C-alpha cells in the first residue's frame, strides 16, 4: 500500500492509453512520455504497459509506503528525496522500506512529468482495456472515474511476479534533453498556410502557454495565417497533431486530446518525438524542425534500440553487478 501525503497539482495513474476507442469518441489518454513510463516499469520488472504514476513535478509531491517495495523514477529531472534525507536517482530502481517516504521536488530545467513505478504495479481498475486516467471524460485511474490522486488516497500494490535482488540503473533516454527542439512532419494542411507563416512556424521559437494541460499544449508567437483556407470537416485526430485554430496560435494535441477535430493541421509530431512533450513546462520555448517520414522512422528505430539495450542490461544476472549509467 502506498499513501499520498502530498498529491501535487496533477498526479494520475497512466499506462499506454486506451488505444482503440476513438470511433466511440474516447481519446487515447495514457502517459505523455511513453518511453519513460516503459522504462520505469521495466526497471522494477513490470511489463512496460503496467499502470504507474505520472506526476507533474512543477510542485512537490510526497508518498508514504506502508510496505517494503522496489520503486523507480524516470522522466523529468526532478529532485528525488527518500525519507527526507537521502537523494534518489533517476533511472534506478531503489528499495523503499515500510514507513519510508518518497518526495519528488521541482528542479531547475526539470521538465513537466516524472513516472514512478512500483514492482508488481499498482492494483487499480481497468476501464475499456486501460488503466489510464482520462480526467476530462472521467474514465479510468485509481477510482475508475478519472479522478486525480488526492491527499490521503491509498493505492494497493500487486505482488511482484519475481524477486529483485539489487539496485540497477539505466542511462536515461531523455536525461540530457534541454534543447527544446521537436522534429515534425508536414501536416495535411501545411500548404494552405501562406509562405511567411510556413517559414515562421519553423524559424521562430514558440512559447508554451500556461494554459496548457494533458489535453493540449498551447503555443504563443506570431500569428499563423492561411492564404488558401479550405473548408475543413471533422475527422479523427490524435496526440501530436498540431492544429491552428482561427487565433493563428498553434495547439499541440496532447495525450488526452479529443478523438475528432476540424482545425487545419500545419504539422504532426511523429511517434519518436512525442516523449518530448513531457519536457515543456509553461513559458519554456520550443522550436520545430522539419523531417521526412524516413527520418522519423529512423528516430523511432533508435528509440527501439535504446529500449532493447535496456532490456539487455536488465536481463543480466544481478550478482555480476552489471550497471550501466551516464
Amino acid at each position, binding site marked *: 500500500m502506498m499513501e499520498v501525503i502530498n498529491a501535487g497539482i496533477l498526479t494520475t495513474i497512466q499506462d499506454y492509453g486506451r488505444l*482503440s476507442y476513438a470511433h466511440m469518441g*474516447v481519446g487515447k489518454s495514457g502517459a505523455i512520455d511513453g518511453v519513460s513510463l516503459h522504462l520505469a516499469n521495466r526497471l522494477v520488472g513490470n511489463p512496460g504497459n503496467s499502470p504507474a504514476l505520472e506526476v507533474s513535478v512543477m510542485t512537490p509531491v510526497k508518498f508514504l509506503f506502508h510496505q517494503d517495495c522496489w520503486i523507480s523514477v524516470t522522466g523529468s529531472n526532478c529532485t528525488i528525496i527518500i525519507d527526507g534525507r537521502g537523494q534518489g536517482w533517476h533511472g534506478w530502481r531503489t528499495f523503499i522500506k515500510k514507513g519510508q517516504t518518497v518526495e519528488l521536488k521541482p528542479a531547475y530545467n526539470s521538465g513537466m512529468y516524472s513516472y514512478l513505478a512500483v514492482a508488481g504495479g499498482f492494483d487499480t481498475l481497468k476501464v475499456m482495456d486501460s488503466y489510464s486516467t482520462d480526467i476530462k471524460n472521467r474514465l479510468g485511474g485509481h477510482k475508475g472515474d478519472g479522478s486525480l490522486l488526492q491527499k490521503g488516497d491509498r493505492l494497493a500494490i500487486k505482488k511482484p511476479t519475481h524477486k529483485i535482488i539489487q539496485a540497477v540503473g539505466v542511462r536515461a533516454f531523455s536525461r540530457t534533453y534541454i534543447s527544446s527542439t521537436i522534429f515534425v512532419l508536414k501536416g*495535411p494542411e501545411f500548404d494552405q498556410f501562406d509562405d511567411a507563416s510556413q517559414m515562421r512556424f519553423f524559424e521562430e521559437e514558440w512559447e508554451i502557454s500556461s494554459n496548457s494541460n494533458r489535453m493540449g499544449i498551447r503555443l504563443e508567437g506570431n500569428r499563423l495565417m492561411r492564404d488558401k483556407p479550405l473548408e475543413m470537416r*471533422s*475527422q*479523427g485526430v*490524435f496526440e501530436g*497533431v498540431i492544429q491552428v485554430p482561427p487565433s493563428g496560435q498553434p495547439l499541440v494535441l496532447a495525450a488526452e486530446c479529443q478523438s*475528432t477535430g476540424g482545425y487545419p493541421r500545419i504539422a504532426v509530431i511523429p511517434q519518436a518525438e512525442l516523449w518530448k512533450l513531457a519536457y515543456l513546462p509553461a513559458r519554456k520555448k520550443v522550436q520545430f524542425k522539419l523531417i521526412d517520414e524516413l527520418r522519423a522512422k529512423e528516430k*523511432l528505430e533508435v528509440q527501439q534500440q535504446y529500449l532493447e539495450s535496456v532490456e539487455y542490461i536488465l536481463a543480466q544476472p544481478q550478482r555480476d553487478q552489471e550497471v550501466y549509467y551516464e
Partner: protein
Amino acid sequence: MSIEIYSVGDRGITLSVCGEVSLADQQKIWWVGEQIASSDTLKGLIIDIVPGMNNLTLFLNPYYTGSRVEVSQVLEKFWKAANELDLTEKFKGKLVEIPVTYGGEKGPDLLEVAKIHGISAKALVQKHTAPIYTVYFVGFMPGFVYLGGLDPSIHTDRRATPRLKIPAGSVGIGGSQTGVYPGESPGGWQIIGNTETSFFDVNREIPSLFLPGDQLRFVAKDVLL
C-alpha cells in the same frame, strides 16, 4: 465522387471524399471501414478505424514496418468496390428512440429558438421529432453523435456566449446540427430539452449507445412551457 488519400504524420492515413457531404458517401465510408477491419493484409497495422464527416481516418501502429503505399492502395480498392454497391439498405443500423423532455428547466432555450424561427414551441418540437436521424460518426467526447437530418427550417446559430456547464443528456441545436451532450460539458448549442437515456456507459459491453450508421428518433416525452 473523387477522393483524396493522405497521410496524417506517421500514425494516420485519411480517405476523404471531395464535394458536398452526402449520406450515400458516408455509407461508403462505413463500408470501407468494415472491410478494413476484416482485412488480413492490414493485420497488426490498424489501431483504430475512425469515420469523420465524409472521411475515414485509420490510426496506424507506428512500429509496424509495412508500407503506407500499400494502405492507400487497399483504401482505394475498397472505395472503388463501394461505388459498385447499393448500400442504402445495408446501413440502416439499429433505430433507437430517445425520449426527450423539451422546454422548461430541461430546455432553457426552447422558447427563444421557437421565437427565432417565428413558430410555436410545440411546432419546433414537432419539427425536431419528425425525422429519423442518422449517426454519421461518433467523436469529440465519449458517445457524442454527429447526426444528419435536421430540418433546415430550424437550423439555429449557436449561442453568442457558450455556457460553461451543460448537464448530461442535454439535447441541443448548433447551426445545422442537432445532438445530445452525453456528459456534462461546456457548450455553445441552444439547449431545447434533456434525455435520461445514457449515450455512453463504460459498464455496457459496447459503451457507446450509438455507432456510425445507427439511427435515432427523438420522441417528446413532455413539453414544458
